[in-house]
């Protein structure tokens, strides 16, 4: 049985990735990415952090198990994954913008989405593989 802090962290990550997937689907349906979409995803990330903080205050005994050394290692891995995803994503989008009609502004927003989404995706996978929480 996962503790409440770990559950809160997982829920926040799932909601954020769901928003990213929704945005991706909207893009394929012809909706252009806009700053508003990125703000919504950023707000979800921030709310997830606030929720974790509140749960930590209410249930301090959940903190150590939820952030034990294996979870911390997975969390560190998520940042590394996020860095490389954003770096590869930037170059892919930059080069794509050079050979297509895609605006650089849109590419910039998508890099932001990748920066926020990649670590969350890593943590979700790590959690279900038993490597976090």
């Amino acid at each position: 049985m996962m503790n409440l802090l770990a559950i809160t962290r997982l829920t926040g990550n799932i909601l954020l990735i769901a928003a990213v997937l929704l945005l991706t689907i909207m893009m394929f349906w012809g909706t252009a990415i806009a700053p508003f979409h990125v703000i919504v995803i950023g707000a979800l990330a921030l709310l997830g952090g606030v929720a974790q903080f509140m749960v930590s205050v209410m249930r301090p005994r959940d903190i150590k198990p939820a952030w034990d050394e294996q979870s911390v290692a997975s969390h560190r891995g998520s940042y590394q994954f996020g860095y490389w995803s954003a770096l590869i994503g930037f170059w892919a989008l930059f080069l794509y913008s050079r050979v297509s009609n895609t605006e650089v502004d849109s590419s910039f927003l998508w890099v932001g989405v990748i920066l926020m989404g990649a670590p969350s995706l890593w943590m979700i996978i790590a959690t279900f593989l038993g490597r976090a929480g």
Partner: protein
Amino acid sequence: MTLLRANLKEHRKRAGLTQAELAEKVEVSRKTINTVENGIFVPSTVLSLKLARCLGVAVEDLFQLPD
């Protein structure tokens, strides 16, 4: 390549503890106990010492380098 051979499961069962009970005693998640037992996660020195102390054995009884 296995970095560590773990006998944690045997000693845990000998002590009559579940993974969750042992996890609570050393303040980690049950999943961490599981991955340590299965040789997936290599614990830190501190966690290894905590586990050994909790189970009343030496660290070398719990973990060995593979041959």
